[in-house]
């Protein structure tokens, strides 16, 4: 008595009087979720390779609903923090993460068994698979509930889910469910029967302590055994779901053992719909966190960093250190190639980054990274980079040079201009613009003229912008504009470093003697042979 009173008090103080019962692990304010809209401008997802990233994150996930969450960015700092907390908790607590992952897998099995049961023909078969689902469900839910109860949870989302789960598993309904499934299963497990299959004739009979033959045979030939057994991949089709022959066999078995089957019938009738809808939703929504954390694991293993950006709505400063293009890094890591990381920062009145430098020098990649981190920031997920402060934009607009559009009747330049106009019309001070080689089809003087005019329009709107161009002239348009350059190796200008810097750094000159090149000097060799 004292004990339960104590727990009650504990919860009330923990929740700080905030008594909204748990609804969703993805949305702090579940009711407001439906108001979320994002201008799903197809170009943005294509240009920034977001489509590719989301595809890579969610490939292999059965639940296609999940993909939609990655296309539904958030607009409230509070909501983003709600997700950050859950992410941080799952990321820092490996055992919690694994436990929840297992929970999700098991819940998927439960749902699969249930829908399978619905489709079956023979009654005992139907009830049998339903029983499997109940069994798995009760075990899975109990296990998670117990685990979370003993865990010192810090995120608001998981705390209130844990509270919900504790109340649920302590309910009479759940206890009864657990007890019943155990009883029915145990009595069915005691059933053992025998068959004599002789041609088309089948005799079903009760087992009377007969010996299995297998071990004797194995024993006889054991002496020839050695470690590597060839694995004969014998194809015995596993047929799940009974047919008339199995049904006839089972009906014979029921005659030898009637009781367990009577128990099963009544359990099925009484508890047919057993699953809790909130728990079911949690098992779906939490996958958002799992797939993302699983996805970024490979990058972390390659030494790349992720961080929880500070998301702001003012324009004091934004920055990102050691960021990278998530789509490119995915391919690089697959090929076991190095990934180059880059920084940017904009302070005070600085609004627009102009990137210049050689072709294939990593400029477009940098532009994508800039856009990706802002989009991912709006999803409330950890973003590429060691440390970041990013702006909570209302929208992202992109204009990338695209080859396939060349046949446009209006002429390339005109259509470019129309598109940029459209972007500028929609842009608010809270938006983000990324322009990549826009107006590259024009003559240089025309392009400079257009670019300068567009830039001053954008500067008037006062939104954050990134502009990739070959026009050095526009890199110096006042203190709101800063210049970054794709660097090459000082030693050999044909080598791109893929570093984009606000200032150029000095390359280090070096010369290696032949022996040093192969680590074959006396000192090097000493070390190698000792090591």
């Amino acid at each position: 008595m004292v004990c339960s009173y104590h727990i009650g008090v504990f919860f009330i103080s923990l929740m700080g009087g905030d008594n909204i019962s748990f609804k969703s692990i993805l949305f702090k304010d579940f009711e407001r979720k439906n108001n979320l809209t994002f201008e799903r401008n197809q170009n943005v997802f294509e240009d920034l390779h977001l489509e590719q990233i989301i595809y890579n994150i969610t490939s292999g996930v059965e639940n296609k609903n999940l993909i939609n969450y990655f296309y539904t960015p958030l607009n409230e700092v509070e909501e983003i923090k709600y997700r950050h907390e859950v992410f941080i908790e799952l990321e820092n607590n490996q055992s919690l993460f694994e436990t929840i992952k297992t929970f999700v897998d098991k819940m998927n099995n439960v749902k699969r068994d249930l829908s399978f049961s619905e489709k079956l023909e023979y009654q005992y078969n139907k009830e049998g698979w339903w029983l499997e689902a109940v069994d798995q469900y009760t075990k899975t839910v109990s296990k998670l509930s117990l685990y979370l109860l003993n865990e010192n949870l810090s995120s608001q989302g998981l705390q209130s889910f844990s509270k919900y789960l504790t109340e649920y598993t302590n309910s009479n309904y759940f206890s009864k469910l657990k007890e019943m499934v155990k009883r029915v299963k145990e009595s069915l497990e005691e059933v053992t029967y025998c068959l004599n299959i002789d041609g088309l004739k089948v005799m079903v009979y009760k087992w009377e302590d007969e010996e299995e033959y297998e071990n004797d045979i194995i024993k006889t030939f054991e002496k020839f055994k050695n470690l590597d057994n060839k694995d004969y991949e014998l194809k015995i089709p596993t047929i799940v779901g009974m047919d008339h022959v199995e049904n006839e066999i089972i009906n014979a078995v029921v005659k030898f053992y009637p009781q367990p089957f009577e128990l099963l019938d009544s359990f099925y009738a009484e508890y047919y719909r057993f699953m809790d809808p909130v728990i079911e939703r949690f098992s779906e929504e939490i996958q958002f966190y799992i797939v993302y954390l699983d996805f970024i694991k490979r990058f972390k293993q390659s030494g790349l960093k992720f961080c929880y950006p500070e998301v702001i709505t003012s324009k004091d400063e934004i920055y990102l250190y050691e960021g990278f293009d998530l789509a490119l890094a995915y391919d690089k890591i697959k090929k076991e190639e190095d990934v180059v990381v880059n920084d940017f920062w904009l302070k005070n009145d600085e609004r627009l980054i102009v990137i210049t430098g050689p072709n294939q020098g990593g400029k477009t990649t940098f532009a994508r990274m800039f856009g990706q981190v802002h989009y991912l920031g709006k999803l409330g997920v950890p973003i590429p980079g060691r440390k970041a402060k990013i702006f909570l934009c209302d929208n992202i607009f992109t204009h990338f040079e695209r080859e396939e559009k060349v046949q446009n009747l209006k002429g390339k330049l005109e259509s470019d201009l129309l598109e940029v106009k459209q972007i500028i019309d929609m842009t608010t001070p809270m938006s983000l613009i990324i322009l990549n080689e826009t107006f590259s089809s024009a003559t240089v003087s025309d392009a400079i003229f257009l670019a300068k005019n567009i830039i001053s329009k954008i500067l008037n709107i006062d939104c954050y912008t990134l502009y990739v161009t070959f026009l050095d002239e526009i890199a110096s348009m006042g203190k709101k504009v800063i210049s970054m350059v794709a660097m090459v190796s000082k030693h050999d200008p044909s080598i791109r470093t893929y570093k984009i810097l606000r200032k150029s750094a000095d390359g280090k000159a070096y010369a290696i003697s032949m022996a040093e090149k192969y680590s074959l000097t006396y000192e090097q060799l000493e070390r190698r042979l000792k090591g």
Partner: protein
Amino acid sequence: MKVLLLYPDQNFNFKSHEEYNDDLIRDLGLDVIFEAMAKKDAFIYDIVKKVLLSYENDLSTILYRQDIFKDCINNKPIVERIYNLAIDAIETKKKSWLGIFSTNVSSLLSSSVSLLKMFLKFLREVRSISDEYYEKFDSTGFRKLFSTIKKELTEEFFSTAEKQLKDLTFESGFFIKAKLGPGIEGKDYQLLKPNKKVLIKKRLSKLAFLKPPSYTFSLHPRDDAGIETLTNIRERSINQIAKTLANAGDHILEFFIQLRSELAFYMGAINLYEKLSNLNAPFCFPEPYDLDRRVRKFTGLYDVSLALAKGKTVIGNELNATGKDLFIITGANRGGKTTFLRSIGQAQILMQSGIFVPAIYFSTNINKKIVTHFYRKEDPQLESGKLDEELRRFDRIVSNIKPNSLLLLNESFSSTNEREGSEIAVGIIKALIENKIEVFYVTHLYEFAKHFYDKNLENVLFLRAERKEDGRRTFKILEGEPLPTSYAKDLYEKIFNN
């Protein structure tokens, strides 16, 4: 049941795909030795190549094999008979095995049953040979093999195996036990021994009250789906047994393959033994020392590949050195230095493989690895790239080398000028011998040789290709300090003034 004719405690792993050291084969001329051992038998060629190239580090293994080989020489006809028996058994499987293309349980089981019946006959023959000739063999290896056969292949084994194989033809149907699995579907189907009570009840089907309680039904002959279900249940009950018997067949086959393979090595050694005997070339059983010792004692050591290729005996060398880590060999071109270096490597490999070596007397320490780095004059590369190539090769060697290895260098680092070559070589060799690597270095790099000569180190020995007063070469390698000029001039004059 293991063969254990190459190791006292384990099978030789012929399946390991360790990469061949092609440089070693090429530099030491080992392929000539393989060919002589194989006597045109591709299987033996493959085996001796594997065994020789995986030369042993363990002293007792080497002596274990020497004893077995002596038995082989003394009992050649019996060894050949066992060898041929193994081949016959392997051939039987090739001819009879039908299960190989099948992933079907029933056919795998019936194929396995008939194959095992045939293998049992060969095993009975092995047993009778070992009973008959046991006394004629002295080596631990052969004695152990014969006693294993006696212990494992008993009459009780043969009769039990034959009875079980007969039961597995299922004359009175399948007896199967089952439990209820997920979905109330049958699971854990297990084959039972034929149940006598059930057999009686089947015969007297009118007496329904007989134990055990039962229910019988029959399928319509055209009920294909139902028949498939029954087949499925049957196959699940014999799944494990089918695999076990198929594996048993594989393992008996492997025993015969292992027997054939391990004996093939000795058959190869017999071939080489006979060939050298016919040439009247000397050979002896070497006396190995442990890895960490430094002993090089031999007399009449010759390049066996050269002797085999020429079909006659060739000049041998002698050495009596202990405590040396570095041997620097200088002297006249075409004075037998490369041949000497090769004979050192060949004998080391043959000794560590556990057979005889081409010498009158041979006793050295065992080496962890035997590695060669020979200058390749024939490499079609630009001069500038050659040093790069040499160093790259050396870098690979260093990455894999272990303490107490033997490194045979032939004109290494001579792709650059002498000063640079010597500079590189001094550093490398110093580091190597300070780290327990044994080095034989045939070189023209006088500055390098002089550097070590002036240091007068205890663990360095200088050898030189002999040249008589009249300039004639004897192809003998003797102790001797490095001399500033080589004998290329002689050679030049001999060729151009002739």
